[in-house]
């Protein structure tokens, strides 16, 4: 079913609604992301960014609407095989070592040789000195690097990242971005920091009050600037207009 065709649609949400008890989180989200594209999901706190990602990864079921990832319902194993997910403030298994985390998740995700894949990612992310360190004793930055590695251990084709560059210093941010660039995948990155959105994507979806309020490219945003406005100010204006 999944075909990594640049002309195909890899992420599709139609009329998605979701309530937590009586509190609405999503009020009819619509979005289509072509395969191979890189999108940022931007919005103020409580806009529904994390809920959108949790629905896309199959951790939550929407109350209504249709959602597919790579053509599959996200709750199916077919979808889980192609999706990589990193939540905000991710904590891997705290009582396993860095290497054990990668090997275990590789193993249960059906990676052919989890040991080699773990070593490869450890090397790529400069984590070799910490490979035998338990997650509970890792610094926040190294824990975040491990979390990114866990999200991509199974070579996913659709990658959903929630604030992926949190806690990373500038050189590490660069190495993580380089590694993500090398993967031929579709990205949806949730963030509220425009600088990170610019680094990781070319397209932007702005959501507010559980709906998509704007959808376009980074260049569109730059072109909307009035009187030398910075891109952050343009986005802030778009968010305020909606509110």
């Amino acid at each position, binding site marked *: 079913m999944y075909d990594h065709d640049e002309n195909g649609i890899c992420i599709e949400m139609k009329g998605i609604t979701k309530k*937590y008890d009586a509190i609405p989180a999503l009020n009819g989200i619509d979005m289509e992301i072509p395969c191979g594209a890189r999108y940022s999901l931007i919005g103020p706190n409580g806009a529904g960014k994390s809920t959108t990602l*949790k629905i896309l*990864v*199959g*951790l*939550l*079921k929407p109350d209504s609407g249709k959602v597919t990832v790579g053509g599959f319902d996200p*709750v*199916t*194993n077919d979808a*889980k095989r192609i*999706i990589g*997910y*990193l*939540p905000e*403030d*991710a*904590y*891997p*298994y*705290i*009582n*396993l*070592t860095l*290497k*054990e985390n990668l*090997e*275990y*998740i*590789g*193993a*249960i*995700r*059906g990676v*052919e*040789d*989890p*040991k080699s894949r773990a070593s490869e990612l450890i090397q790529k992310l400069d984590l070799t000195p910490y490979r*035998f360190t*338990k*997650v*509970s*004793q890792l610094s926040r930055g190294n824990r975040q690097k491990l979390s990114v590695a*866990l999200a991509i251990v199974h070579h996913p084709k659709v990658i959903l990242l929630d604030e992926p560059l949190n806690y990373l210093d500038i050189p590490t941010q660069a190495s993580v971005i380089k590694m993500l660039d090398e993967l031929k995948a579709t990205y949806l990155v949730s963030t509220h920091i425009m600088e990170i959105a610019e680094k990781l994507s070319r397209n932007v979806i702005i959501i507010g009050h559980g709906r998509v309020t704007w959808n376009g490219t980074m260049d569109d945003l730059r072109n909307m600037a009035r009187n030398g406005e910075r891109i952050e100010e343009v986005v802030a204006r778009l968010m305020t207009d909606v509110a």
Partner: protein
Amino acid sequence: MLLKTLKLILITRYSKFFIVILVLLLAYNIFTGLVIKPTEIVYYRYVVLAIFSFFTLLAGVNSTVPLLKSDVHFLFVSAMPRKDLILSLFTSKYVFYGLSSLIPVLYTLPFTQTGRIDELAGLILSVLMTFFVTSIGLALYNFSIRVRIAVSAAATLWLISPIFGFYYSPMAYLFDHFTYGIIFVVILSAGFTYFAFRTLATSQIEKTRVIGSVREKRDREGNIIVKIPRETTFRNRSVAFNTIAFNFSRVPIYSRTSFISRNRSGTTKISRVIIAGIAISIVLNLILVKMSTSGSTDLLLSIFISVYSVMFIPLLFSQSALALERAWLSFTSMDPGIYMKYFMTGKILQALSFTAPISAGLIFISLFYGLPYMGLALLELVPIPCLLVVYIYIGFSVGVFQIRDPEFVTQQFNSRQFFNVLPSLLFLPLAAVSVIVPYFGGIFSAAMVIFALISITRTGLWRRKAFRLIESGFI
């Protein structure tokens, strides 16, 4: 200032629900303790002894200083007198370990003595013992797990030694040897309380405790060059095998067992749980043999053990089961319903590893002392591990406590968690009947196996529960 500090420390460590429950139990047991004047005294000596032994072992092995992250950020940097903080921290520890051991003792104490003066002396000694129980939970904080286990186990054995006719023990006061009781209780409680306050006075929040064994790589001169934890290797086996093996091999500890603490959450290896099961089996069977009269079972004691097994063993293995789980990794790797099937299989096998040695010992002594021990053996072997399914289901329903920050675990016992205990009430009479009528035990065991198999294979049910869990913030 002391009262304000104490209030702050107590309300930040305990939920109102927990404090209310403690106060109600305290009031009830003081009342019943004063009113009931029983004539039968034999068994309740053992109840008092069992309670102090249990809490000594629990507090000692799990020795922690009840500090929270916020204490370091706000209280340690304030100008408040350190002695107020130390006294408040000790009191907060006493509220759990001291009162939890005192409450049942108050209820049973009148059973142990015959005259008013003895009663008062027994009560004073029991109160002193609660200080010992609290203090051992603080005094051993700076020691390694091996030392904590060794000291706690030695203290526990010393406490139970009067059962075997050794009266040079603090608990001798329960067996009409008041002089030895007074001498040893006073020495123990005073000594350990002193060391507990010293520990609190010098405790540093930055100190971390490493759980798990570490292999050291040394150079030719014997210097340590790198410390490598003993690792689990995930070979190229099936996904089901790896998932079950992972969930079987690591037993979560420290996440629920100490109620108040500044403790690191952790896991222990299944081999240690098996060793604990064997040790308990040996002690338990020795006690049962000692208590059984020639050729006949001690039925009351067997029922007592069955009731406590049903109440505590499934709770022990289920309460922390999901606390260290990571839904963003496990539930996104496969269908949550299927993951939970493997997860619960691993957890049932874990509980079985603990109860199997106990069961084996009981089967052995049942050959000499009759069928009720066989009923108890069957109960430990089959229904108790199967009960985990019920407990995990209830846990899912009332909300799972997830440990995210490994350094500082704030644990407040709330009313929702209380519901975890309720299923045991349903199974208590069934467990007791299984011991009295072993044939019923066979039917009960078969029913529990069928129930567990049907339950864990209902993937749709667990999937729905998993979604609900994520909605409540579990990630």
